């Protein structure tokens, strides 16, 4: 038997070139991986170093100062911080209600399967429309619509123009897809056996949703809202086009305002000297607020996933 067995194999060991290029390739993926970290550090360093003169000059008082006057070299971003937070919170209030409604409707068998899919796609498409197009639409559709709507309540049309209300409404539309998508994931991952338990006890559909599904998915839904908050804080163009860009600190929905991102968009092109540094300081503030909110949101979502997995085990 062993004599019949003699034959040639086509197998060849890997060449030196194969071995070397393998090593080289693996090291270069490692290098690109490290470069991502380097990129983030470079962004922090670049913006931070540009902001340094303003940080030295104004200190933390920058955050509480209401003036932005290049002529007097007096800079503060309290109105912008306020406007950023206020517009985002308003937008979230609206978007949470609608986004959650959509998430429930497309996940709890309210509609025929095909209609669910259509609605889901439509909401996803909302996220695909560029910000600047929403700004354009806001100027020419939302503001005029608000004018005629508010006229019914006795508000003179001349008082309705670029302001917090249209900005927050459009912002709400822009973050709604985020809330819907993440909240839907949380709702879908509620174990079926929990829902069956509720139905088995004779609960109506909404008793089941409000009593079992939403509480179980609560952490995930909250994470969705926080992530949407992070997105709203950094949104630029639609707000820059709709909010009125004046450094006013007001609760009035029809008063114009400003946000950090809109301030950057409007002022950087013409800025120089200390004003530019102050803008970079504002960019640092924006960066830290959004980073903090995003990290909190991600942690909440991680925890939501872990809780659900823990529940299964």
């Amino acid at each position, binding site marked *: *038997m*062993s004599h*019949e*067995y003699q*034959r*040639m*194999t*086509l*197998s*060849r*060991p*890997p*060449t030196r070139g194969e*071995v070397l290029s393998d090593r080289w390739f693996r090291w270069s993926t490692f290098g690109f991986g490290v470069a991502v970290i380097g990129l983030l550090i470079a962004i922090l360093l670049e913006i931070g170093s540009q902001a340094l003169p303003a940080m030295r000059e104004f200190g933390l008082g920058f955050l509480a100062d209401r003036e932005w006057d290049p002529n007097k070299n007096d800079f503060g971003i309290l109105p912008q911080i306020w406007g950023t937070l206020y517009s985002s919170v308003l937008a979230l209030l609206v978007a949470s209600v609608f986004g959650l409604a959509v998430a429930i409707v497309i996940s709890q068998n309210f509609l025929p399967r095909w209609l669910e899919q259509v609605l889901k796609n439509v909401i996803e498409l909302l996220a695909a429309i560029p910000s600047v197009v929403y700004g354009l639409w806001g100027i020419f559709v939302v503001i005029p619509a608000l004018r005629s709507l508010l006229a019914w309540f006795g508000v003179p049309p001349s008082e309705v123009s670029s302001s917090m209300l249209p900005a927050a409404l459009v912002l709400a539309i822009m973050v709604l897809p985020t809330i819907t998508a993440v909240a839907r994931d949380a709702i879908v991952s509620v174990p079926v056996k929990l829902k069956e338990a509720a139905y088995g006890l004779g609960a109506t559909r909404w008793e089941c949703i409000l009593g079992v599904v939403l509480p179980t998915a609560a952490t995930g839904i909250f994470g969705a809202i926080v992530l949407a908050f992070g997105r709203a804080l950094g949104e630029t163009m639609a707000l820059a086009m709709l909010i009125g860009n004046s450094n006013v600190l007001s609760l009035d929905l029809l008063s114009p305002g400003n946000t950090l991102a809109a301030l950057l968009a409007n002022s950087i092109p013409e800025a120089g000297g200390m004003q530019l540094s102050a803008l970079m300081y504002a960019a640092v503030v924006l960066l830290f607020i959004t980073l903090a909110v995003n990290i909190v949101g991600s942690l909440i979502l991680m925890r939501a996933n872990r809780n659900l997995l823990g529940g299964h085990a």
Partner: protein
Amino acid sequence: MTTIDTYIDASPVGDVAIDLHLEKVWYGDFLAVRDTSIPIEKGSITAFIGPSGCGKSTALRCLNRMNDLVHGFRFEGHVQFQGKDIYAKNIDPVAVRRYIGMVFQQPNPFAMSIFKNVAFGLKLNRYKGDMEQRVEGALRGAALWDEVKDKLQQSALALSGGQQQRLCIARAIATEPTVLLMDEPCSALDPIATRRIEELMVELKQHYTIAIVTHNLQQAQRVADKTGFMYVDTSDGGRCGHLVEYGATDELFASPKVAETQRYIAGEFS
């Protein structure tokens, strides 16, 4: 505590293709297999049988260093292949696997055409000859040619499970490796496909050395020349597999020497 006897009749009849001498295999802190030595003979089929978790797959995967992929894997012992210990420091596991091919439990064709699947190894080994002829030869060798000759450019993923597994065999034999390892190659297949692959194995042993892991005793009886029975030793609290009995297949099944082998062959546990 019961100690299990072992009966190893390791006097090889023909030349030895791979001399497996496994002392200890660890996955992290877990001692998976110990004391398993089998001379895998050229031009024959050697089967590893035993209950699940007895480490037969682990032992087989030590033969071409597939276990290197597992995190925390450590090997004590040696595996002699063509006069070299493949676990020696200066050995490239990639080169080892080019000479010792493998067919897996689950059919695993690549997401490309049938032709490209078979030609994959040829290209890898920089084969310069007539590619189409080689591919046809390998597909004929795997008894698949007639079924796929008209659709060589179609996706391999569209084939049935049995066809996919034969394609994987064709892919493995296209480069004519020195040894072919098969890890429960029929466990995902229906009886008819299983039968075809068994016939194929018997044909292939004319040219190849084959080592196969199977949980199917009849399969080992039908195809294997030599059989090793592995068993799990739980005496020290772990689940450590080791070789209990090894010898010619006919003898092992007709007159098993060790009590555990007898009970396993009698179907008292699986």
